[in-house]
């Protein structure tokens, strides 16, 4: 089973402007530190709340996929897709928590960190 949340929003600005807004400080968290390359580190800080994770894919200005988790919580995967539209852009958000996929391939559930490289292929298969 996969738990999944999906949202879509249309914005009257170009994908590049959307990309800058969603990868910069103040949107995903107050302070966003994203290494925009596959396997790059990600840190999200809002006051006392810190989420850590890693970047699965970063393709400016159209696609950002990353994993994040608060301390002790199961990780979830976020996929942000920006498409150019006549009047601007659309932004689609999908957040999933595909824990069973990881169970299925016998990979320890991500507290992130060192496990990341070993469960990469399982995620692609999902």
């Amino acid at each position: 089973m996969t738990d999944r949340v999906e949202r879509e929003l249309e914005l009257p600005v170009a994908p590049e402007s959307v990309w800058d807004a969603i990868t910069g400080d103040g949107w995903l968290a107050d302070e966003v530190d994203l290494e925009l390359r596959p396997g790059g580190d990600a840190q999200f800080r809002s006051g006392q709340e810190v989420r850590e994770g890693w970047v699965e894919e970063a393709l400016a200005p159209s696609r950002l996929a990353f994993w994040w988790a608060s301390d002790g919580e199961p990780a979830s995967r976020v996929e942000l897709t920006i498409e150019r539209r006549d009047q601007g852009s659309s932004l689609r958000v999908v957040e999933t928590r595909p824990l069973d996929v990881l169970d299925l391939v016998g990979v320890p559930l991500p507290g992130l960190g060192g496990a990341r490289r070993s469960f990469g292929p399982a995620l692609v298969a999902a």
Partner: protein
Amino acid sequence: MSSQRDLAGDVFGALSDPTRRALLSSLAQHPAATATELAADLPISRQAVVKHLGALADAGLLDRERSGREVRYRVTPAPLSEAVGWMADVGAQWDDRLATLSRQLGGARAAGGAHRGEIPR
């Protein structure tokens, strides 16, 4: 993605119907009931009950177990409450973030939903 959604059904969709909520509540009190037993307590036909139970089972809220000529149903409560809680929390967080972005960049027409899907095995 959409076929995954079609196959899986939708927890919230399944729970949007009052008859289905009544069935879930009835099953929580009488585990392993059959459609015939459940229909006895409701003002609808056994056939209608079976259809609603099918929708609940497709959304992952019930387990079906064959027993002779009948099928017995059980609620799967732990994943349900946990999943619904997660989807409600995470959904509300994205609603907030998208509203912020929309104010910042002047957007419109938000749409979306939350659902529980089954990964093909």
